[in-house]
């Protein structure tokens, strides 16, 4: 029992120190001065927006697309995946008015989901780069230009990844925590990975990629629910790079209700479990350039969960004297410090984002006990759904995130 506790504690602290190291790198990367110069010639870019029943947000998205400032050729393609609301009417009105915006109806097909829609969009574009935005995104006017400048001027880069900010962060406690999670894990850690190892990972949105690179990789994996994470590994396995550009910002909606949040995150986690399984079967996931991605993936989605789950069970059993721990190590103090280190990371991200008001800091203080613990529940739910579908030999269906009215402009 003691050995298990010591192993678990060591594992937690290794992960915590690793993330703290990333956070330090992230802080250094975020505080730099934008290092890229203006280009003489800007390459052509297609923006792909997959959409299924996005009428609530679509006009604000297209409004932001029309406001993008890009010195090269830029086209925006709304890929309507059989919407039954007014997505089509909005798309058609914008494409009739503005030469930059095009409306395309995606033919019905299987498997359902973003990857198939993106592959359809990629089949007819003629630009050098493509950029994906989710249907609720409102990029800042210079976002595309900044991503392109970084992609063109970074050695071995085939694209670039920007920063996703939460437009409805102040709506309620849940959206505040999601926004905080994005600040810490999406930007700070992502920036840290780039700073230390020149390793960026694609997000599902605000990501630029060379069309020729994706063609060489064989397009999107249509069965991947976390298509961004899956593609990241394949890009890394080629030795290609994806610079992280915090200055290229887009704003998106996050779930305002716990029910929608759970469904969205379950889909993401199932996607990551799919990737985990793929990584165990495919040797290319473990070469020199993909090793860190894969180790991090397996540590987070497998070892961490197993250790956390078993130690929670043991803790409960020891409370009822079913098992006993005879360690001289002050476990409580060590656990407390892990809380302090975790909260310090959140606080650092808040300060960097100039988001450290009194209430926000208080929200950051309770994240560990609330939001972070949800991860375990979500992961258990996702593992159950994943294996249940595998046993029944069914394809897991794409679950679209519901959008909300308001706070769009």
């Amino acid at each position: 029992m003691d050995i298990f506790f010591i192993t678990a504690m060591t594992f937690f602290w290794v992960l915590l120190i690793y993330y703290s190291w990333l956070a330090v790198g992230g802080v250094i990367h975020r505080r730099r001065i934008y290092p890229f110069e203006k280009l003489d010639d800007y390459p052509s870019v297609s923006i792909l927006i997959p959409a299924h029943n996005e009428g609530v947000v679509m006009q604000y998205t297209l409004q932001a697309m029309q406001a993008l400032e890009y010195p090269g050729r830029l086209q925006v393609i709304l890929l309507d995946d059989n919407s039954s609301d007014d997505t089509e009417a909005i798309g058609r009105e914008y494409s009739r008015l503005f030469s930059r915006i095009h409306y395309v109806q995606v033919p019905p097909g299987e498997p359902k989901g973003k990857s198939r829609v993106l592959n359809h969009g990629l089949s007819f574009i003629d630009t050098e780069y493509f950029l994906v935005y989710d249907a609720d995104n409102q990029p800042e006017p210079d976002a595309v230009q900044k991503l392109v400048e970084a992609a063109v001027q970074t050695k071995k880069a085939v694209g670039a990844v920007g920063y996703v900010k939460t437009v409805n962060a102040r709506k309620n406690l849940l959206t505040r925590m999601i926004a905080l999670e994005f600040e810490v894990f999406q930007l700070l850690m992502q920036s840290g990975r780039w700073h230390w190892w020149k390793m960026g990972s694609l997000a599902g949105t605000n990501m630029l990629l060379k069309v020729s690179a994706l063609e060489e990789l064989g397009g999107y994996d249509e069965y991947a629910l976390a298509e961004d994470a899956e593609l990241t590994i394949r890009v890394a396995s080629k030795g290609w790079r994806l610079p992280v550009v915090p200055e290229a910002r887009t704003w998106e909606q996050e779930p305002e209700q716990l029910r929608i949040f759970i469904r969205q995150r379950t889909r993401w986690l199932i996607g990551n479990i799919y990737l985990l399984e793929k990584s165990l079967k495919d040797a290319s996931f473990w070469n020199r350039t993909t090793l860190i991605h894969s180790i991090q993936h397996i540590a987070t989605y497998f070892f961490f969960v197993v250790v956390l789950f078993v130690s929670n069970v043991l803790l409960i059993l020891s409370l009822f004297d079913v098992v006993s721990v005879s360690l001289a190590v002050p476990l409580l103090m060590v656990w407390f410090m892990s809380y302090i280190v975790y909260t310090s990371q959140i606080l650092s991200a808040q300060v960097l984002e100039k988001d450290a008001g009194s209430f926000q800091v208080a929200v950051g203080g309770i994240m560990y006990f609330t939001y972070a613990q949800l991860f375990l529940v979500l992961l258990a739910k996702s593992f159950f759904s994943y294996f249940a579908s595998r046993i029944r030999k069914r394809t897991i269906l794409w679950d679209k995130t519901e959008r909300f009215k308001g706070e769009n402009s």
Partner: protein
Amino acid sequence: MKPTVSMTILFTIMTLCLLLMFQVGGALLQAISMMLVLAAVAGMALLPKRYIFPAALSLILLYGFYLTGWSVFFASAPAQLTLISHHILFSLFTVSVWLFFASFKTLLAEHAALEKQVDELKKYEPSSMLLSISEFESRVELMLTGMKRRGESGYLLHIVLKPQVYATAALQKSMSGVILESIRAQYDMATINQDGSFSVFLQNTDETGVGIVKNRLDENRQKIMAAEEPPYDVYSSYMEEYDFHTSAAQLYRVRKEA
């Protein structure tokens, strides 16, 4: 939450933490606390702004690891719960002092920035860099006085967007850019009215000049808009009697008749 409310709460937390900190633990722990509290307050007051947060965070983390080390290596260390309570109180105190100072400094900075912004907003319509209505009217009236003295003629244009179901805001923003590109930056002026139409004042020009501007509007519009037909109508009026309000009223009549 209003800054005054949050600052009062922070002050209360600071005071409570200080009081409680000196009730928990033995003399040694309290002596360490006293030194750390003094270091934290002095640091916040004396350090340059950019170093305050890293310093506060370092202090919290180092103190935490010091207490952990004490607990691990010395059997005589106070109970874990005492150490944890002490660290929580110290961290709360430090974070509250930092937030208090930060709120105060932010209020001062915001005040200065807002004053500057208000001055700018008095001149421009913020999202488009068109002039605000009041700035447009006062500048036109000023220019008309000069034009009258020099015997020059001027024109007032109204650009009215055709109604759209979903893309009204996007069209308005794009047209702002088109208009600014199509008029002479040094001589002409434009504003957006409350009904979403645009008013453009063309100084020292005649009907030929108005025609040139209309063509330029169409050329620039076609660079970004797909529609064959312009999604707007243009009405123009000669600035009679060098009076802005008379000319504007006349233009509204022309629009209404059209």
